[in-house]
């Protein structure tokens, strides 16, 4: 036994519980001694024999881990799927809410668009890393916690009931619709909030609210609330598909939004007077034409949205009848 063997023994034994060290030490010295002797007998020099015997043992930490059945992986097959499913679920549920929350908070405190995007990306990455780290840590600890005898631990036995339903035809395309609706509505809501601080890239409007600030007493919160309802509505469409109830809801939402907006616009309450002056409104003779175009686009957009809902409802009923 030389310094080299002693170093190997120390490197292996230091990670073991105190109680198991003596036995481990004895067993390992027996093994190294026997292997070295056999190599010397085969004609190797004592030094070479010892080096070869220790090299064959491999990494001392791995040897010790095997000795006490300590896993050499962070999360093994028993918990891997549970960890992976939970991680995905947390990321897709928590991250969007965190991002929206940060965007709103930044907008309310008057950040620029660039500042909002920067904050959302920065905090989003940090929230994601936290979620991944803590989830993984919990499972790594579970992996190292022995389950009581006869129990499986916290992993759930898989049953047939856990099989996912076959994807409904149309649900995949509805997902794309959901994402685009929600993105549009969030941007729209953000625009309503941000316009309060002016349009930074137009010098005349740099700090002038576009919409009449007096509307904050009722109408702007009302529109923001409606946008919230529209988001819920988009989720409902994704979950259930179009039906007559939802088509009717779509009509109500469109009326609730478009009528007050047009009324405010036509009675001159919508746009901030200062902003109009800054834009040098009215623009010569074109004013009536522009007003007419805006009104037609607003009515046309709302009408099309309602009709689109009805068409999709009729199609969805038809498809349901065809498969029934």
């Amino acid at each position, binding site marked *: 036994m030389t310094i080299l063997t002693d170093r190997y023994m120390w490197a292996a034994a230091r990670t073991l519980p105190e109680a198991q060290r003596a036995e481990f030490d004895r*067993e390992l*010295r027996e*093994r190294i*001694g*026997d292997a070295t002797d*056999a190599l010397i007998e085969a004609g190797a020099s004592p030094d070479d024999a010892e080096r070869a015997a220790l090299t*064959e043992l491999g990494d001392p930490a791995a040897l010790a881990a*095997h*000795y006490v059945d300590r896993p050499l992986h962070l999360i093994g097959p028993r918990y891997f799927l549970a960890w992976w499913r939970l991680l995905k679920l947390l990321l897709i549920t928590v991250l969007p809410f965190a991002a929206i929350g940060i965007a709103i908070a930044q907008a309310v405190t008057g950040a620029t668009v660039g500042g909002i995007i920067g904050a959302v990306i920065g905090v989003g990455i940090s929230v994601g890393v936290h979620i991944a780290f803590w989830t993984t840590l919990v499972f790594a600890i579970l992996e190292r916690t022995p389950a009581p005898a006869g129990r499986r631990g916290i992993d759930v036995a898989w049953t047939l009931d856990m099989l996912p339903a076959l994807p409904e035809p149309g649900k995949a395309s509805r997902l794309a619709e959901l994402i685009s609706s929600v993105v549009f509505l969030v941007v729209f809501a953000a625009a309503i909030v941000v316009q309060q601080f002016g349009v930074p890239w137009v010098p005349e409007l740099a700090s002038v609210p576009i919409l009449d600030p007096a509307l904050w007493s009722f109408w702007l919160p009302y529109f923001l609330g409606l946008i919230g309802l529209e988001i819920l509505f988009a989720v409902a469409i994704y979950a259930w598909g179009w039906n007559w109830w939802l088509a009717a809801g779509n009509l109500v939402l469109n009326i609730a939004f478009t009528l007050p907006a047009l009324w405010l616009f036509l009675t001159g309450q919508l746009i901030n007077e200062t902003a109009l002056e800054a834009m040098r409104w009215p623009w010569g003779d074109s004013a009536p034409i522009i007003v007419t175009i805006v009104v037609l686009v607003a009515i046309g957009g709302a009408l099309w949205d309602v009709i689109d809902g009805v068409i999709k409802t009729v199609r969805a009923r038809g498809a349901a009848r065809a498969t029934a």
Partner: protein
Amino acid sequence: MNPEETTAGHLQELRRGTVVLACLVRLRIPDYGYALLESLNTLGILVDANTLYPLLRRLEKQGLLTSEWNTDEARPRKFYRTSPSGEQLADALMTDWRRIDDALAGLTTGDEK
């Protein structure tokens, strides 16, 4: 993965259980790790030290082997011996081994009935 690695992997899987059986049968007469390794390899039951030593520990933990330190010589050695439950397991494994051997023989000669 090249064909040689694939072959080596399958051979290893095929031998894994037979090493357990060989140990249980061989250790009816008590012996220590290195002597067991030598005798198994001489008999043509190929196993390397990094497999055998952890296996002996595991079998001991499962109560299939018992052990005793022999300190008569300069180097203390741990002598393993097959326990009664180890004997039972050896019988069960041997029976199954014979059954599989017969079945495979029937399969290769096409004489299954």
